[in-house]
């Protein structure tokens, strides 16, 4: 990794964006958007997480090898969620409505 020092000013922008998004997600949480509520909440959470990972955790400036580890960690998480949900949601073991 070429030595890269992120300035306090750059960090301040990210910090401002994170606080703003926290406010937005709380405000939107109060509005009734039906099924979209959970979608909006998760999209905002993912954007916040990306800001933290890319800039606070320096992945934006990191080596390719480190990025591979980050992406594979997320890929394994996706596998965990995806395969568990396809199984659980299709078998009707739990009291799912309509099953």
């Amino acid at each position, binding site marked *: 990794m070429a030595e890269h020092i992120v300035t306090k000013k750059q960090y301040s922008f990210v910090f401002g964006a994170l606080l703003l998004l926290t406010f937005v*997600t709380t405000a939107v949480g109060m509005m009734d958007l039906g099924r979209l*509520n959970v979608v909006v909440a998760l999209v905002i959470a993912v954007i916040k997480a990306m800001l933290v990972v890319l800039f606070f955790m320096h992945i934006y400036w990191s080596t390719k090898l480190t990025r591979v580890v980050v992406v594979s960690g997320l890929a394994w998480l996706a596998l965990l969620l995806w395969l568990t949900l396809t199984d659980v949601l299709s078998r009707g073991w739990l009291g799912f409505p309509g099953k």
Partner: protein
Amino acid sequence: MANHSLALRHQFDDVEQQKDASTLGMWLFLATEVLFFGGMFCCYTVYRSAYPAAFGQASNHLNLILGAVSTAILIISSFTMACAVNSAATGAKNALVAFLSLTILFAAAFLVIEMSEWRMLYQEGLMPGFNFTYKEIDPAHVQLFFCMYFSMTGLHASHVTIGIVILTVMAIRAWRGAFSPAYYTPIEISGLYWHFVDLVWIFLFPLYYLIARHLQG
């Protein structure tokens, strides 16, 4: 140790490679942490999709203001941690110690708020295993919600506590002059850990506090 901290261990070609190896190792650890918490988030997803009404009911018993304030406090602590890494990289020793202390302070404030929320839930009879007296709609699955809430926020709080210990050690080492612009890898690695703690809360907050606010009368 401080005198030897600049020394290159014999298995590395240069200082940069040594630092890259530390960063990579920390990210590998964080990948295991993603799956550690991921298992609980997966469990949460399954039960929430099975019992959406009970989860919504239960969620509205959490204190939204406390949840939002503690989210903001953790974000502030992540920012002060990032500033600590910047201070270490530029060799500003006093600023480094100050920013690490601020981060510890905000971490402690987060824990105080969380414990006060737990105490309120205990008093309301919403703490499974200790005091659970909820008798309204679907108490069994409301209890399930609170089991998951206390497990996940508890696991997160234990990470915050470990973070406070790590950052305290770092602040003491920084105070003694162990770090310089040429060597501050431990500060950077501790920073990665601290930001991860913030990351987990970024998902816990909407998934526990914001599920069904829009359905509240």
